[in-house]
């Protein structure tokens, strides 16, 4: 669901298809369209775009009401031990069932939630303990809350399972039929297959991609899948899980080592002026306090080591490791508000590197017009992208809306090196770091992206070298030395590329004193003696001269010696859950990590005897747990991290060590996934009075006009998506004649039924209109697209792959000219997978 794997990740699809042909695995595709993925699956169930939570919620209800789930001891053992099903929630909590579509805690203006009522019931806090590994841990220890209360019989009405049961009570097959537009029979087939293929001997996997994320309820859709998988015992086990298929070579790396406004590397939050982040101590307490009983109990080490990597010797305990000089965010600075602020003239200078917002940006017309407000812009790419050329030949310039002479933006185009022309590492969608070596110098003045940033930094540092201002302390004291060793650049014409090895080594982390790499993040310190760019990557360079990302020894299964999977070469996260509560494998077929009571733990008891028992993985898989914590061991109450966690707390990054069916924290739009209609929908929400996500990110400004619910002017649902033959905004594919000829032009997929209604001819032109823009495309009339009957009303959907722009060997209008800026409240991802529009036969401006 939410993924068109065969088309967008064709090579990854090799494996499920192999499972189908060689092992009789059942592949099911739940998707609005019949795609190349559907064609390869046993079953395709079409559901209306944006109705995923209704479908998933009904799956959850089906599972927890099924006879097998209630009788097979496997499910109870897994759920009671590894999820928070038994945990008791604040009795003040009110569910959507009681408040007709919203949860308790909604602010009077209806735009945000306070989550106090979503919290756990807890025991008395333990007596305040001392003895942390450093000053920050000491403070955290003072704050450890009492353990959550539980009811292992799962009967308490406030226990999570009962809340979940109640929440999804009305998500019946009948509701699925009415909301999703598929038959109850098709739904039941999916549900039964999921259940039949989960258990001790079998696991089922759910794979998604941006088909789930690009919604105003994107995070909640994925949560719903995670809940289903947790209930089915499919997490932390081989063949199970919820797999995110991400779209770019190192999009995972860009998230891990975030070039994202809200995040520091390795998932530390960005200091925020709106939060209690006024000093490093407060920052750590605010951020780590609620998490300190998980592995995040080590947060102080991560934060201090990050600052040490940032400012080097200038970062000292006395100056809070330079924390005061680190910038703070003050709001949502993500892509969409960034472009809106640019349109408002707030932003003067813009670096665009390997990105093409003139095509790929939501409401792209608005984004292109925003570029014209800049004083300067630097574009780094291979080709003259639409973004680079916006001032020259964008639709706005051609239509006269913008005049080239009036655009005062100073534009720099810097040619970029291709991947084969530089050394570096990528992190793939499975968190696997892989090294790519340099094969040749890039042509002419083309340079690697690292070169650009490094050389720019060197220049700036020189310019600020004489500044005595506090404001410039950060750039002046930035640790910025990645000069290549002579042997690194010896074979090449270009001698001033920064050393990729030195950068990765800093990301990995070193001990400050001798600059030796850290072998594991367990060696990090919170006293400033270690520097580490991104703690989750520690271990990629375990010792000088050894780069685990460059390991290239495959095997038939997990291939632990191929690249490096963060964290600590763990390929399957939370893999402690692949063994039962006693540490024994659930079954021979699904054996991965288990407790070997006879193995030498490598430690000795005070008497000097060898302590026996440790977690083992014969496949070489990294163990995502404390290696010597026995399954029966009970955690300490007044402790941090692993010390607090018990031998059964497989989900070590959660403060209670459990997989969350109910999310007491971390989400801004509710603890349980709930069906809301997309922000623009042709139908009213049939499940609740609340139409759409109440706290969705909405920007009502000029040029970003939204359509109403069931807006008669825009009755048709449109999804944007990708095809195999192109890559995203097309910069890396539309300029390649080999790919251009495979998919030469923007097209719009239309059902024959809609085509008949509108007089659309196959291969003829259609014009698609929203309040944001108007584009034309070639029509592809196909039964792979179907109209849905939603609660008795016919709802037409059309599909628009969005790869095209006006530059390159394959051209077409910009599909994103139609989309609106509206986003998920948790992560500010836009809703590109479903919005409304109108379509008519013929070209733009009435030409036919």
């Amino acid at each position, binding site marked *: 669901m939410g993924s068109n794997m065969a088309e967008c990740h064709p090579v990854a699809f090799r494996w499920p298809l192999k499972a189908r042909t060689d092992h009789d695995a059942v592949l099911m595709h739940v998707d609005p369209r019949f795609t190349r993925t559907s064609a390869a699956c046993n079953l395709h169930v079409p559901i209306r775009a944006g109705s995923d939570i209704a479908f998933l919620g009904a799956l959850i209800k089906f599972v927890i009401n099924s006879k097998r789930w209630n009788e097979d001891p496997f499910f109870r053992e897994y759920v009671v031990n590894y999820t928070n099903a038994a945990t008791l929630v604040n009795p003040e909590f009110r569910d959507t069932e009681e408040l007709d579509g919203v949860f308790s805690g909604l602010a009077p203006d209806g735009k945000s939630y306070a989550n106090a009522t979503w919290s756990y019931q807890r025991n008395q806090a333990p007596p305040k303990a001392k003895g942390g590994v450093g000053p920050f841990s000491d403070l955290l220890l003072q704050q450890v809350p009492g353990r959550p209360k539980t009811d292992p019989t799962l009967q308490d009405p406030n226990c999570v399972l009962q809340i979940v049961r109640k929440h999804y009570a009305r998500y019946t097959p009948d509701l699925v039929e009415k909301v999703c537009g598929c038959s109850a029979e098709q739904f039941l087939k999916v549900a039964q297959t999921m259940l039949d293929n989960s258990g001790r001997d079998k696991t089922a996997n759910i794979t998604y991609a941006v088909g789930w994320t690009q919604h105003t309820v994107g995070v909640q859709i994925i949560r719903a899948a995670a809940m289903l998988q947790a209930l089915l015992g499919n997490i932390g086990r081989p063949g199970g899980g919820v797999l995110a298929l991400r779209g770019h070579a190192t999009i995972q790396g860009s998230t891990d080592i975030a070039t994202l406004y809200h995040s520091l590397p390795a998932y530390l939050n960005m200091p925020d002026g709106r939060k209690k982040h006024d000093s490093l101590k407060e920052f750590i307490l605010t951020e780590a306090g609620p998490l300190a009983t998980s592995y995040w109990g080590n947060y102080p080490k991560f934060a201090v080591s990050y600052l040490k990597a940032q400012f080097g010797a200038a970062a000292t305990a006395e100056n809070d490791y330079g924390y005061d000089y680190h910038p703070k965010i003050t709001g949502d600075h993500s892509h969409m508000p960034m472009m809106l602020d640019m349109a408002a003239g*707030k932003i003067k200078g813009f670096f665009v590197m390997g990105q093409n917002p003139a095509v790929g940006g939501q409401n792209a017309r608005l984004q292109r017009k925003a570029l014209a407000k800049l004083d300067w812009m630097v574009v780094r790419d291979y080709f003259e992208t639409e973004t680079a050329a916006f001032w020259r030949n964008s639709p706005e310039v051609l239509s006269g809306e913008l005049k080239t002479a009036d*655009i005062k933006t100073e534009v720099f185009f810097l040619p970029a090196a291709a*991947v084969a022309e530089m050394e570096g590492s990528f992190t793939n969608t499975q968190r696997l770091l892989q090294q790519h070596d340099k094969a040749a110098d890039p042509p002419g003045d083309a340079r690697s992206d690292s070169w650009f940033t490094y050389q720019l930094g060197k220049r700036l540092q020189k310019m600020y070298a004489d500044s005595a201002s506090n404001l410039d302390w950060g750039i002046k004291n930035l640790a910025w030395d990645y000069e290549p060793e002579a042997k690194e650049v010896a074979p090449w014409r270009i001698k001033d590329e920064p050393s*990729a090895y030195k*950068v990765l080594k800093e990301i990995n982390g070193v001990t400050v004193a001798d600059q030796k790499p850290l072998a594991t993040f367990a060696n990090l310190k919170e006293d400033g003696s270690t520097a580490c760019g991104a703690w989750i990557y520690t271990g990629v360079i375990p010792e000088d001269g050894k780069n685990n990302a460059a390991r290239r020894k495959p095997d038939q299964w997990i291939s632990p010696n191929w690249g490096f999977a963060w964290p600590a070469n763990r390929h399957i996260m939370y893999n402690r859950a692949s063994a039962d509560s006693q540490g024994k494998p659930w079954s021979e077929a699904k054996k991965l990590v288990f407790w070997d009571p006879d193995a030498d733990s490598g430690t000795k008891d005070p008497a000097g005897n060898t302590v026996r028992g440790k977690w083992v993985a014969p496949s070489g898989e990294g163990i995502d747990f404390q290696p010597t914590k026995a399954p029966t061991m009970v955690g300490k109450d007044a402790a941090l991290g692993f010390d607090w966690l018990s031998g059964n707390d497989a989900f070590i990054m959660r403060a209670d060590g459990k997989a969350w069916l109910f999310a007491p924290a971390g989400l801004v739009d509710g603890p349980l996934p709930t069906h809301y209609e997309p922000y623009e929908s042709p139908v009213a929400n049939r499940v609740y009075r609340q139409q759409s996500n109440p706290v969705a990110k909405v920007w009502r400004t000029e040029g970003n006009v939204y359509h109403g619910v069931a807006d008669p002017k825009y009755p048709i649902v449109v999804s944007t998506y990708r095809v195999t033959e192109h890559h995203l905004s097309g910069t890396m594919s539309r*300029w390649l004649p080999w790919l251009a000829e495979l998919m030469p032009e923007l097209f719009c997929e239309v059902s024959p039924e809609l085509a008949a209604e509108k007089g659309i001819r196959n291969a003829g032109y259609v014009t698609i209109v929203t309040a944001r823009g108007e584009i034309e495309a070639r029509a592809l009339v196909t039964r792979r697209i179907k109209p849905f009957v939603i609660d008795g009303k016919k709802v037409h959907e059309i599909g628009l792959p969005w790869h095209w722009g006006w530059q390159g060997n394959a051209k077409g209008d910009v599909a994103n000219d139609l989309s609106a800026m509206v986003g998920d409240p948790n992560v500010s991802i836009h809703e590109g997978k479903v919005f409304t529009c109108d379509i008519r036969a013929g070209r733009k401006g009435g030409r036919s």
Partner: protein
Amino acid sequence: MAISRRKFLKITSGAIGGGVAAEIGILNVDTAAAAAKAGKAPIKSGRQVASICPYCAVGCGQIVTVSDAGEIVDIQGNPDSPINQGTLCPKGAATYQLVKNEQRWSTVKYRAPGSDRWEERPLEWAMSRIAELTKKTRDANFNEFQDLPDGKGGTVRKRVMNTYAIASLGGATMDNEWNYLHQKLMHALGVVYLENQARI
């Protein structure tokens, strides 16, 4: 490729089965010679460098072949990779054309404010100019403190050490190392409009 005429004929007639003999060499010419010649095909070869596909996040292994002259002559799947086992999708298979492409720009282009054309400029000049603009824009728009809502309807003065005048938007096909350097530099400069394709 030493293959006797007799053997060759046997092979072909075996393969042809009941068909008519496909060709007749007159003057007792050895038909195998032609076949053998066709068989001695030269093959692209050179130094092989391990790489990773630049497109999606599946992370397929690639092998880049470099000629003696240092030119990339071939890019295809790495059969060792447990991810793709030598296979590639159409985009991955086209990587060679991404690198070797007539339309690829390899010089710095500059468009002056209000101008209607690109001009070529030296890389050094562009870097100096960009650094200068960055410094100028940052210095003119740097915020040490800012009044922010205190949550009780009022405001409170907070140290923010940032600038809203510079924004950065990065793609997600650029190295981890770049991501690290870039966030490091941007944070050092106080840039908070720091975004990446990774959001979507």
